[in-house]
Each structure stands twice: as C-alpha cells, then as structure tokens.
C-alpha cells in the first residue's frame, strides 16, 4: 500500500518535471550509466532551449553516434539520430534547406572530433548557423572505454592499457582556429553558468560551440583511479573561470587547471547570411 502510494507520488512528481514538455517521456528510462554526466548536460541543454525562447516547433536536434549521441532520441523536438560523426553535415543540410529552423547538434567528443573532426572544422570555418554542444567525457563510452582524440596523455583506456601515448585536442582552441564565432567550455558542476552559456550559444548567429566536461566513471574513471565524486571534485577544485581568456591559455589539465568560461564571441556574417549576400539573385539585384 505504502509502496503504491510512493510510486504514485514519484509518478506525479515526474509528471511535474519542468522539462517534461521537451522530453520524450515514453523513452525514459534513458541508457546513461549511474554517475554519468550526460544527463546533466542534456537537461542543461533543454533548459537553455526553453530559456532562449526559441520556437520549439522550429527547433531540431541532431546527434551522431555514442552515449551523448542518444540525446536526440530523448528530445521532444524534430530530432535526428544520424550516422557516426555525421551529425554536423546532416544538420548543415537540414538548416540550409530550411533556414527558419534552429538546429542544435548534441553529441560526444569521439563523434564530433575524431570520426567527425573534418566536418567540425569546416562547419566552423563556414560559420554555419548551428549550435554544436559537445559532451566531452575523454573516451568512447558506448563501446566500453577506448582512447579518444580527447583522452589525456598517459591515461588508461581499453585500447591504451599502459597509457595513452598520444596527446589530446584542445577543443575550444580547435574551434577558435577553425573560425567558430561563439566558444565556451563548462563542466556539469557549473549548472547555472552552463545553462546561461548554452542559452547565449543558441541565440548566437553563426557557429556556436560549447564543450561540456562530463565524468564517465564506469569506463574512464574506473581505469584511471578516479572515483565518481573525485571527478566532480576535480571540476570544482581545479577549475578556473576565465571569460574572454586567450584561447592559447585555456588549459584542460589536472595540474595546470581546467580553464572554463565563455571564451570568445565574434559578430561576422553567418554562413546563410553570406550565401544570401553572395549567391541569391534578389540580394545581387538589390546591391547592383
């Protein structure tokens, strides 16, 4: 009897969750592991979508493959779970075919920066009208914890059993060098900053990029002697908030510090604006 009423109470509570109208509640429970940070990053994204006041009927989410790539499947928007690494070019086609859509790419570091790295730098170069949100958990979680293009040097993964011989990308620096016009990095410990930053990214015209650091205790933490809470403590203790920081100084390092902030914002014509001005005959006629 008590159990039943508890369940009812929980059910009612869930029905009142402020993000329910943006969630495919019929797909819950989600697949994310206990201690994983993707859910926090995803909730922040949905909150930001709400806060931004975007027309939800004209907002689409596109994901690639991987743990974070499951995001699109839970968003009650037009949502597309595409092929591995190809969320950005798919989103590019979607946006160009209907510029009225707000297109959000929600995916992981392996998807966006290894297999999809080429698409990322080109979309940034074009200042393509997209918001790209990358949940960075430093490894390939879905496949059981392999080395990624973001895994720190010497970190252990299932494919670097004695330590990673390679060095990782610094994602915001890569975004900056590629031409992104809004660049930020936060962790899932920085809830309010993260939501505000994501809101700004969503309202930004052009290519906006937000990296969200997230723990992966099951696959990454476990192999690197980092207990679930320790990762969060690291985010809290080692983070240095430095808005407008020099992109060369935005380290992601347990020793030197994890630099967070809204690093860069630039106003230049977005891809669609540039195409309109350069290629559309009505614009060409007006200017001649």
């Amino acid at each position: 009897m008590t159990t039943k009423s508890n369940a009812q109470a929980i059910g009612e509570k869930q029905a009142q969750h402020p993000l329910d109208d943006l969630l495919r509640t019929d797909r819950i429970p989600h697949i994310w592991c206990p201690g994983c940070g993707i859910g926090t990053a995803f909730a922040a994204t949905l909150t930001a979508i709400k806060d931004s006041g975007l027309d939800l009927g004209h907002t689409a989410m596109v994901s690639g493959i991987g743990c974070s790539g499951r995001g699109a499947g839970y968003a009650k928007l037009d949502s597309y779970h595409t092929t591995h690494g190809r969320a950005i070019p798919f989103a590019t086609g979607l946006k160009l075919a209907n510029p009225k859509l707000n297109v959000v790419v929600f995916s992981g570091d392996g998807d966006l920066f290894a297999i999809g790295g080429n698409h990322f730098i080109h979309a940034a170069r074009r200042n393509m009208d997209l918001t790209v949100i990358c949940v960075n958990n430093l490894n390939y979680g879905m496949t059981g914890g392999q080395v990624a293009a973001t895994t720190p040097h010497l970190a252990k993964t299932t494919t670097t059993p004695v330590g990673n011989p390679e060095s990782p990308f610094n994602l915001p620096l890569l975004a900056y060098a590629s031409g992104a016009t809004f660049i930020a990095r936060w962790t899932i410990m920085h809830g309010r900053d993260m939501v505000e930053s994501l809101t700004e990214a969503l309202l930004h015209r052009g290519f906006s990029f937000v990296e969200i650091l997230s723990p992966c205790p099951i696959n990454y933490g476990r192999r690197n002697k980092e207990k679930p809470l320790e990762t969060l403590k690291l985010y809290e203790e080692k983070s240095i908030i430095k808005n407008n920081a020099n992109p060369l100084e935005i380290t992601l390092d347990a020793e030197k510090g994890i630099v967070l902030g809204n690093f860069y914002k630039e106003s230049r014509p977005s891809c669609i604006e540039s195409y309109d001005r350069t290629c559309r005959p009505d614009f060409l006629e007006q200017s001649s």
Partner: protein
Amino acid sequence: MKPAVLTGEHYMTGDEAIAEGALAAGCLFFGAYPITPATEIAERMSQRLFGVGGTFIQMEDEIAAMAAVVGASCAGVKSMTATSGPGFSLMMENLGLAIVMETPCVVANVQRAGPSTGLPTQGAQADMMQARWGSHGHYEIIALAPESAQEAFYETIRAFNLAEKYRTPVLIMTDELVGHMSERVVIPKKSAITLEDRPRPKGRKDRYLPFEPGPNGVPPMAAAGEGCAVHMTGLTHDAKGYPVMTVECQEQMVTRLVNKILDNRHDIFSFKEYRLEDADVAVVSYGISARTARAAVDEARQEGIKAGMLKLDTVWPFCEEKIFELAQRVKAFVTVEINLGQIHLEVMRAARGKAPCVLVGHAGGALISPEQVKAALRSI
C-alpha cells in the same frame, strides 16, 4: 533569371542534362564534392540553383555531401548529389541512413573505371553491383541507367519521382561516356512534366507515426519544422521511429523496406524491347552500352542473325520475370556492359538455365564496339 525548366532545344552534355532534369523535377538542394567525370553536374547546379530559389553547397567530402543531402530532404526539400566511383564509396554510409530513415533523395554516379582511383577520365559500368549492395545490411535500391543526354534528362526526373513516391534514395547509374558527350536535348514545357511529391501526413500531428506504412507500404513523411516532433534514427525502429533492439522489430522493418520496393517493382521497372518479337538471341544492355548493342543488333539483322535487345532503363530492382519469360523463347542471352560480368550474372540467375548467357564486356576505360557484340552473336 532562367526558369527551372529550360523549355526548348539544347546542345548539352549528359552531365548538364542530369542537372537540368533535377531542376525540372524541383530539386532545391545540391550537396556537392568535385570528382571527375561528375563535376559538371555540380558546376551547372552551382550556376542555376540559387536562381530558382534553391541552395548549392560544396561540402568537405562526399560523406558530408551525402549527409547534407539526407538532412536537406528531412527538411522537406528535394535534394541530390552527384559523384563517381571513389566518392560513391564514401557515400555508401549515409545512403544506408537514407534507406533506413526512408528519406527521398537522388544520387548520380557518373561511372569511371575502377577499382580505386582507376582511370578517372574514362568510362565504365563497373559500379553496378556496388549500387546494388554497396551499403551494409540487406536492402533494396532503385537504380536507373540512361544511355544518352536526352534520357539522362528524363531519367533524372523519373529518379526524383520514384524517390518521392517510395521515400527512398534513387541512383542514376550513368557513365563518363554519357556524362561527357554533347548531344541534342529537348526539354518540354513545364506543364508537360509530371512530378511526384512524398506522401504527406494527414490528421492530428500528435498522432502521426513517421514509419507507419500507407497502402503501398510507404509511410507519409513530415518535415522538420512542421510541428510533428518527428524522431528518426539509423537504429532499427518501430512505427514511431523509436529504437527497438529486437529480432522481431528488425524482421518487420527490414522486410517492409525490402517489400516497399519489390511489391511496387512493376511501377518502378522501365525497359525497352527492340526487335525482340522474333529474336533468337536477346542482347541485354543499359547505359552507354545499349547504344553499342542496338547498333550491333541492326547490323547482325543485316547478316541474317535474328537478334533483338532488352534495354534496361531500370537496372535495380532487376526485371527477373522479364528475363525468365525471354529465356523460354530465345536461344541465348548476350549481355553488353563495360565490366567483367555484373548484370551478366543477374541475367544468368534470372534465366534459370533455360538459355545460355554470354558476356561482352571489358575492364573499363572505353566503349565496347558493335563489332565485338556481333562476333558474339555470330558464334551463337
């Protein structure tokens, strides 16, 4: 600005005719990546598409070009790309996505000789089996093979119509020889061109199921931004579009995707019978090689050999019933194609031992001469 349908008589290449066919069919998005001998299609589209209200973009590779095409189609816009062998290989990944997401789109492959970089400027017809099975998993595909610039124009319109009607990617498997040959192309009045659009959802948007099939096996398609909160995934999914990781759902989804094409094959088929009524030998061909084969049939007839030709406009799905029917009344089949035996093996399979099958082909890079075909006809 020029209209989408350039009514009148023109002198243009097969590649340009494909671009004009696409515009006449209402294509409004082209995702490009340059590659010989298909580049001219992209070039023509870059000149023409903005003028008719469309968008052209040259992407960073063929993977991205194909992904953008699928994305654009999900926004409700008729979209296409064009490539050749190496790019076709890269497009296979998102071609599979288009099949599973049931996204209408058109891919033209102006075939050159392979494998690998091969002979980039010289024609072949050796990607026919890649067209059939190039993406992983079991599926059915529609592939058309025009033999001239004029046919390239009409077959491109038909490709868009089939793509829309059946919510599926359609391949135009032409070749360098057709693509780069300039010939007369007559473009009709806009009013004389019949266009198909994808089936659209009716009724309440909150009850719409993006993968609930209609009477012909094809589900209605809502675009992004239409208020249906569509979900699509490359994973095996149910009528809602939600992933379901079961053997039963896999069986149901894949069987429906396959039958959507096979059950409608008589609408998708197009072939031309040439002097076949009293023929002893049936020559089977498609694309540029059909022109070789037709000349050989005419010349062989002058020598007293009763030859005829079955020219395949639609190569995939394969018209096996037609081949089997012919197999009962001809002494042999001769398949003419610029490869070392691809459609030839399909003809053998479909003939089911009722008639011997001969291949006239080579490894690629040039036309087959009518003389080679005649030699085969004489030896039967």
